[in-house]
């Protein structure tokens, strides 16, 4: 039975050898040689150190194209023209599905035709050498961003390839991304990824790990996101990871977003072991964007404003072309600069908003309820607790496509635009807290002169792309 325990060294070695045989580039990974390579990197390319020592929020975009030269050019552009502090390498969909053969075909076609035949950088196919060429070329730290349920080979190759930060986790890269990967399976896979990061960490190379905070990106109640972050943070810490960046996706209500980031930081430090350095990352709005760059810039700026007040360690920026999918590099850099301008104009201002502490307190209470139920479900073991809590629905994520989560909980905004829970389903929560949510949603229903119903949920999902925060009824009551 899988538990929250550190993978023994021999087991680590056994799995490592096994997974490295899954694709030819796996053979090039040499741990000792990789340690030497990491040691040779200058200070300003050490992800954890740069992130943890920053005195204001660092900005990072999303970006990945199939060919190495193009990826170097793209990241150089975002660094130079977008003034990105940290850079990403987003991995293609085939690699996320462990379809290295298809990724190889796509990469070769990209090399022949010059077209972007893959939607990201196939790091496994580029192998250790290709990754290092990228690391060598770019004068800033780079993170691997993907969405891969089984990221073991990707981790083995990118860690050896010089990347010092790796996004994802067993829940956050399963529940929102895939239907049929079992949670037990992904937890086991990610224990290996974390253990590998831990092995580097023990040798002085602190690989930063970043659970994916936004989850389904659609009106996720802060406490649910934070509980998942705490679980994934704890699992990573058990495997020896010592630099963990907990994530949170903007919901658009400034008070709730600042309160959530505060709670995330506080609970992260409380629930994770002392030897872990906890940082936070704030994702600009991950839901639907307005089909209009001018309006999209407004959404992005509200994110920048929130970041200036909450001061997370890192901000993942959006581009004004978010609506249409992958942005041009110019639009990507533009999202970075708009965010930077808002943060730099607002961050030196003392902006203390009333009600943040109260909201933070509510979020913390909710999160503790969820953490308590996880510990209880697992009789003290986080892995077993997580599996059983998701199975019973005591832990749930709204709009989860995965069969591993019930996806029965439904959120709606209250009259102030804060995300509350409209349908609790089997989510474990104090009755007092449920009453608070109910009262807040009832207040909204009164304002709008309609019953609380799924219509509010549907209206809220579309609201920001339609130009508002709250999905009020249009026209008559």
């Amino acid at each position, binding site marked *: 039975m899988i538990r929250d325990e550190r993978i023994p060294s021999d087991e680590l070695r056994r799995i490592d050898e096994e997974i490295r045989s899954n694709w030819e580039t796996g053979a090039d990974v040499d741990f000792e040689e990789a340690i030497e390579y990491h040691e040779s990197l200058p200070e300003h390319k050490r992800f954890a150190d740069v992130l943890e020592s920053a005195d204001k929020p660092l900005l990072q975009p999303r970006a990945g194209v199939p060919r190495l030269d193009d990826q170097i050019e793209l990241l150089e552009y975002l660094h130079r023209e977008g003034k990105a502090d940290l850079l990403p390498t987003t991995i293609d969909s085939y690699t996320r599905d462990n379809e290295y053969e298809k990724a190889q075909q796509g990469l070769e076609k990209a090399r022949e035709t010059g077209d972007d035949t893959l939607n990201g950088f196939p790091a496994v196919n580029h192998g250790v050498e290709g990754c290092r060429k990228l690391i060598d070329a770019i004068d800033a730290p780079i993170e691997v961003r993907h969405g891969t349920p089984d990221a073991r080979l990707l981790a083995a190759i990118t860690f050896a390839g010089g990347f010092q930060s790796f996004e994802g986790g067993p829940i956050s890269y399963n529940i929102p991304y895939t239907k049929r990967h079992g949670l037990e399976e992904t937890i086991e896979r990610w224990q290996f990824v974390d253990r590998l990061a831990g092995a580097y960490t023990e040798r002085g190379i602190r690989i930063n790990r970043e659970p994916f905070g936004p989850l389904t990106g659609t009106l996720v109640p802060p406490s649910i996101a934070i509980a998942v972050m705490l679980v994934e943070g704890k699992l990573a810490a058990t495997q020896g990871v010592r630099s963990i960046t907990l994530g949170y996706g903007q919901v658009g209500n400034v008070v709730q977003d600042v309160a959530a980031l505060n709670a995330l930081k506080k609970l992260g430090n409380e629930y994770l072991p002392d030897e872990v350095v906890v940082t936070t990352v704030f994702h600009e709005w991950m839901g639907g964007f307005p089909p209009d760059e001018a309006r999209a810039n407004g959404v992005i700026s509200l994110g920048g404003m929130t970041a200036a007040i909450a001061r997370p360690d890192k901000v993942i920026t959006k581009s004004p072309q978010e609506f249409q999918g992958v942005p041009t590099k110019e639009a990507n850099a533009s999202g970075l600069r708009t965010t930077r301008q808002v943060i730099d104009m607002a961050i030196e201002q003392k902006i203390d908003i009333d009600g943040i502490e109260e909201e933070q307190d509510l979020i913390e209470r909710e999160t503790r309820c969820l953490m308590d139920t996880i510990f209880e479900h697992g009789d003290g073991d986080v892995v077993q607790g997580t599996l059983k809590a998701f199975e019973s629905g005591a832990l749930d994520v*709204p709009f989860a496509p995965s069969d591993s989560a019930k996806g029965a909980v439904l959120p709606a905004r209250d009259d102030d635009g804060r995300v509350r829970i409209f349908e609790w389903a089997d989510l474990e929560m104090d009755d007092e807290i449920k009453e608070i949510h109910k009262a807040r949603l009832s207040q909204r229903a009164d304002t709008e002169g309609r019953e609380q*119903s799924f219509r509010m949920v549907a209206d809220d999902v579309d609201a920001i792309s339609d130009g508002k925060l709250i999905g009020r009824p249009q026209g008559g009551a």
Partner: protein
Amino acid sequence: MVPDTMSQTVVLGVIGSDAHVVGITILEQALSAAGFDVVNLGVQTSQEEYAEAAVEYDAQAVLVSSLYGHAEQDCQGFHEVLEDAGVEAVTYIGGNLAVGQDDWAETRRTFEELGFDRVFDSETDPEDAIAALRADLDITSTESERATISS
């Protein structure tokens, strides 16, 4: 509850490798609230899974959602699979049905030719789908309202 003999069963899901769950979650809620019995197959549903569910639950309607732009290839042969399984339900499809939806009339024709009874774009309200179901399944609004009141 509405007696089984009165209720209409609708099977819904997202076809192919598509993992966009928000739309069908909201549609499921809307259909339930309107008095339908809903079987939600979730995302990444295969043609065979639709057919099996339609048979098992004796569905009057099969609703297919697709938002990632590959609907046309995912639906090739879909109606043959349903027919082979003996499914006689009405079939609807809705979502972002083509990568560049410049010509909606053409997109609609494509999916009608594939065998769908109705084709909806991604801006469609759940209410529109419900109204269409009521018309196609010969349910009067009054009946449905009565059902809602008696539940």
